[in-house]
């Protein structure tokens, strides 16, 4: 039963597959009742981390505790976790009702108590009218709900979701996202959510960890990660399209980009030197003055417009809030909003504050 706990700690988790290092030493703290997302491209180690938390993989090194108790070597069944798999892993030979009831049966819940619990879980995800169907007779969305119901019916202390929305179509994905969030609120269970879709992570998670190449590159709230990327790697990954990263020079509280000097009001105490300046496409404007750029291609996105341009041969993307005519090959002038410029150290690749 949900007892309000579910604090997960990973320390120095390593996992190798032969010569491939899947996890290179993961440290992570997930707070109780938090909705926590693991975000990263495929092969970055996020799914492996989830499977370590579930107990489906045993780490080669490191420890994992839940509520202070070491579970590094505990069997999955001993951890009181529930998981929704990417392909749902519904038991095809059982009805929806039997699928949802299965964990209860395995948990030794008396047979008479199972149906009401199953019905309740099914109601929560609104599939109580489908109880007697088999997975093969359900739509993708219904299957997904069934998997959700099977996961929540037992009230685990940890709720793990492995790319649960990736097999749904776009429309359904949006709806389900909202529903998942709602479900989390009502259940109050620590939820770990793996996704490669940053928009999903942003909108749904309380906090998130960004994975790259078997390492966590940043942990924080979606706002932190989006607005204060810790390092170049995160900066280059987060955002759609991600930040423009341009080499520049910092001098006297100002950054020099392509010969244009942009004064930064909020950073002045730093010594002069080379930097990498990051700025999101939406924080660039097209104006009469500014850095000259040659337009390569402009894309009409309906409400907004994405302009692909080049500054001194380097690609720059600009998101304009309204659609206007810009011809390919035309030269425009770009203005960077000074208070939205992020600076990174080209050597350590870390953020400069």
């Amino acid at each position, binding site marked *: 039963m949900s007892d309000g706990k579910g604090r997960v700690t990973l320390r120095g988790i390593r996992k190798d597959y032969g010569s491939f290092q899947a996890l290179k030493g993961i440290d992570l703290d997930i707070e109780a009742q938090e909705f926590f997302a693991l975000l990263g491209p495929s092969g970055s180690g996020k799914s492996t981390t989830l499977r370590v938390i579930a107990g489906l993989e045993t780490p080669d090194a490191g420890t994992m505790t839940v509520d202070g108790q070491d579970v590094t070597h505990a069997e999955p069944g001993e951890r009181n976790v*529930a998981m929704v798999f990417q392909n749902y892993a519904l038991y095809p030979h059982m009805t929806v009702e039997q699928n949802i009831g*299965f964990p209860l049966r395995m948990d030794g819940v008396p047979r008479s108590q199972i149906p009401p619990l199953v019905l309740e879980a099914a109601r929560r995800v609104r599939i109580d009218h489908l109880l007697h169907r088999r997975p093969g007779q359900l739509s993708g969305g219904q299957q997904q709900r069934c998997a959700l119901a099977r996961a929540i019916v*037992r009230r685990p202390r940890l709720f793990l979701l492995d790319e649960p929305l990736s097999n749904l179509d776009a429309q359904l994905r949006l709806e389900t996202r909202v529903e998942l969030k709602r479900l989390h609120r009502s259940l109050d269970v620590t939820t770990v959510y793996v996704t490669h879709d940053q928009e999903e992570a942003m909108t749904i998670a309380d906090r998130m960890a960004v994975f790259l190449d078997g390492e966590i590159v940043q942990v924080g709230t979606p706002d932190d990660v989006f607005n204060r990327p810790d390092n170049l790697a995160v900066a280059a990954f987060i955002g759609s399209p991600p930040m423009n990263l341009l080499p520049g020079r910092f001098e006297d509280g100002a950054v020099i980009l392509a010969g244009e000097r942009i004064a930064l009001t909020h950073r002045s105490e730093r010594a002069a030197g080379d930097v990498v300046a990051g700025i999101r496409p939406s924080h660039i404007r097209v104006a009469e003055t500014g850095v000259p750029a040659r337009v390569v291609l402009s894309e009409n996105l309906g409400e907004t417009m994405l302009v692909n341009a080049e500054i001194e041969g380097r690609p720059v993307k600009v998101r304009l809030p309204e659609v206007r005519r810009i011809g390919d090959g035309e030269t425009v002038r770009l203005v960077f909003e000074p208070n939205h410029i992020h600076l990174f150290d080209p050597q350590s690749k870390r953020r400069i504050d």
Partner: protein
Amino acid sequence: MAAANRHKAARLRRNIVLYAAAGLLFFVWAFPVFWAVVVSLKSETEVLAYPPRLFFEPTLLNYRDALVGGFSILPSFTTSFIVSGLTTVLTVVLAVPCAYAFARLRLRGKKWLGFYTLVTQMVPPVGLVIPYFLILNRVGWLDTYQGMVIVYLTFSLPFAIWLMVSYMEDIPREMEEAAFLDKASRFQALWHVILPQVRGGIAVTVIFVFLNAWNEFLFAVQLGGNTVRPVTVAMYNFVSVEQTLWAKLSAAALIAMLPMIIIGFAAQRQIVKGLTVGAVKGGGRR
């Protein structure tokens, strides 16, 4: 209009050619069995008539002789059922868990064990008759059901393991992982989640093991006797030292093969699946 008609005519011609070719091949495959049926309905003199006659006065006497005559194969029928049935049950009970372990679990030396089972399948039966005879004699199991079943197990077991492994490998791993997370033990996962999903595979295995046991001849002759005399041996009562009673032999053989033919027809889909398992893989899981 004319073009459409021409098109239609071309298609008709094509279909006629296709059906003619297919029909010819159909005939080639069906004919020997059909002819055996014809022969079984003839009298012994009629069988030997040349040129062979397609029109004759059919008789069921051969069937009656084969069923209730002096050389009735009915007792052997029972024997075959017992031997094949026991072999099948034991094989499946032993092979399914073993196949699961081979397909899914980490086990030291698994490769070698797999190789060993494959090799045992390749040993020419000719080389095994003598040692089996010696062993069974030592334990007093010559001409016993248990002896025959043990011998058949050595052939059916590697085959069944091999077949079941392909089915087990087809089940997504997430199924078991989900079960483990649902607090199922390894055994429960196997019992509640894996087994029901390989029911089709088990059915195929049952059919093939039964079929092979039923059709076996060499070991049945050498290691069986008055007590264990399967149908394949009993049929030979119509091939005596003095003469071969072809019509009765045909009738007996057809009766002896009838259960297999029925199984073949009834489980046609499963058999095809069994034959194709592993072969069509890569064309999707299901």
